[in-house]
C-alpha cells in the first residue's frame, strides 16, 4: 500500500502530464483547422487538373506515342513506393497505419518476385521502414524545418520521382498517405500516380474533341503530366498534414481523459487512506482514554 506522500506525488505527476496533453491537444486543434483549410483550398486546382487530364488522356488512349507518364513503360517489374508520414509521433495510429499498409504492399510485391524501391517522406516513416527495408530505401525527404507546407515542397519530391522515372529506375509508382475523412477518422490510402490513372467520373468527354489546342495536344499533355505528379503529391501531403493533426488531436484528447480518470482514482484512494488514518488515530486516543 503506497503511503499518503507517495499518492500525493503520483497525483501531482499525472496532473502535470494531463496539462501537457491538454496543451498539445489545443495546439493540434488550432493547427488542424489551418491544415484543413489548406487542403480545401488546394482542392479546386487538383479537381480541374484531373478533369482536364482525364479528357486529354481519353483522347490519347489509343495513341502509341503517348508520353511514358501516361502509358507507362509497359512493364511492372520495379515498383516505387512513396511513403508519406509525419515528422513527429504522438499521433495515435497515424504513422503506423500508413507504414503497415506500405509494408504489406511491399512484402506482397517482394513475394511476387518484383523489385521494390522506397522513397520516404517524413522522418517517422523513414525511421521505421529503415529497420525492415534498409536496402530498398532509395531516397528520403524530410520537411522538419518547413513551417508551412507549400507547393514548393511537393515539387521537390516530384522532381526526385520524375528524375528516377526518366532514368528508368522504376515502372510503377504508388503513393501512400492518410486520407483525411474527418477529425476522428483518417484512412491510410495507396494511390498509383505513375503511370497516371484517372477515374473517369463522366462518361468519355465528347467535348474534348471540340477543343482547340495551343500548342499541340501532345505538347500540352507532356507539359501537364509531370505537373499532375506534383499536384498529386501536394494533395497527399496536405491531406496527410490534416490527418496528422486530426490523429494527434484525438490521441491527445484520449490521453487527457485517461489522465483525468487516473487522477480521480488516485484521489479516491488518497482520501480513503487519509480517512483510515484519522479513524485509526481516533481509536488510539479513545482507547487510550478508556484505559485510564
Amino acid at each position, binding site marked *: 500500500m503506497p503511503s499518503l506522500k507517495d499518492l500525493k506525488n503520483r497525483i501531482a505527476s499525472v496532473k502535470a502530464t494531463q496539462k501537457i496533453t491538454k496543451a498539445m491537444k489545443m495546439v493540434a486543434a488550432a493547427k488542424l483547422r489551418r491544415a484543413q483549410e489548406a487542403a480545401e483550398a488546394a482542392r479546386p*486546382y487538383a479537381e480541374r487538373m484531373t478533369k482536364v487530364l482525364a479528357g*486529354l488522356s481519353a483522347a490519347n488512349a489509343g495513341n502509341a506515342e503517348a508520353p511514358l507518364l501516361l502509358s507507362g513503360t509497359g512493364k511492372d517489374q520495379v515498383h516505387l513506393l512513396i511513403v508519406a508520414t509525419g515528422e513527429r509521433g504522438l499521433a495515435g495510429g497515424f504513422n503506423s497505419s500508413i507504414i503497415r499498409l506500405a509494408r504489406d504492399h511491399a512484402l506482397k510485391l517482394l513475394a511476387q518476385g518484383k523489385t521494390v524501391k522506397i522513397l520516404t517522406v517524413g522522418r517517422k516513416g523513414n525511421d521505421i521502414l529503415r529497420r525492415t527495408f534498409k536496402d530498398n530505401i532509395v531516397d528520403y525527404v524530410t520537411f522538419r524545418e518547413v513551417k508551412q507546407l*507549400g507547393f514548393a515542397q511537393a515539387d521537390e519530391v516530384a522532381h526526385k520521382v520524375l528524375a528516377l522515372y526518366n532514368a528508368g529506375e522504376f515502372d510503377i509508382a504508388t503513393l501512400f498517405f492518410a486520407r483525411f475523412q474527418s477529425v476522428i477518422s483518417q484512412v491510410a490510402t495507396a494511390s498509383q500516380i505513375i503511370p497516371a490513372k484517372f477515374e473517369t467520373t463522366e462518361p468519355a468527354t465528347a467535348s474534348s474533341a471540340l477543343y482547340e489546342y*495551343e500548342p499541340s495536344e501532345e505538347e500540352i499533355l507532356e507539359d501537364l503530366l509531370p505537373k499532375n505528379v506534383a*499536384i498529386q503529391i501536394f494533395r497527399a501531403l496536405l491531406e496527410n498534414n490534416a490527418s496528422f493533426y486530426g490523429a494527434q488531436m484525438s490521441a491527445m484528447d484520449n490521453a487527457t481523459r485517461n489522465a483525468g480518470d487516473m487522477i480521480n482514482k488516485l484521489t479516491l484512494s488518497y482520501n480513503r487512506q487519509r480517512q483510515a488514518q484519522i479513524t485509526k488515530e481516533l481509536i488510539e486516543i479513545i482507547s487510550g482514554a478508556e484505559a485510564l
Partner: protein
Amino acid sequence: MADAFNFELVSPERLLVSEKVTEVVIPATLGEMTVLANHAPTMTTIKPGVVSVKLASGQVNKYVVFGGFADILPTGCTLLAESAVPASELTHATLQKRIETTQGEINHAQSDEHRTKLEQFLAELTHLNGIVMPV
C-alpha cells in the same frame, strides 16, 4: 457592353479569383490572347507573365502568373497557374529570388532538354522582370 463570363484563377495553394468578367488577357505560350465571352473552346499553356482581368464592373485587376495552363470554354475560362500573385503584391526581391533559383537549377540540370526548358523559363522571367518592375 460586352457579355460577362466566369473567370477563375487557381493556384495549387488557393483559388485567387472567381468572378464575372468581360475580358481577360492571357500570356499564352504562343503569344498573348484576349478572351471574351463565347470564345471557342481552347486549351493552352501559359508562360510567366501578366494576366489582366477586366471585371464586369469595369475595374481592371492584374495578376502575375508563373506558368500553367488555361482551359477556355464559351461559358467561362479557368486558368490553372503554377503560382500566381496579384501584381500589386509582387516585389522586385521575390522575382529576383525566383530568377536566382532558376539559375541555380540550370547549373544542376541533368539533361540538355531540361536545361533548354529552364533557360527559356529564365528568359521569360527576366523579361517579366523588365515589364513589371521598371527600376
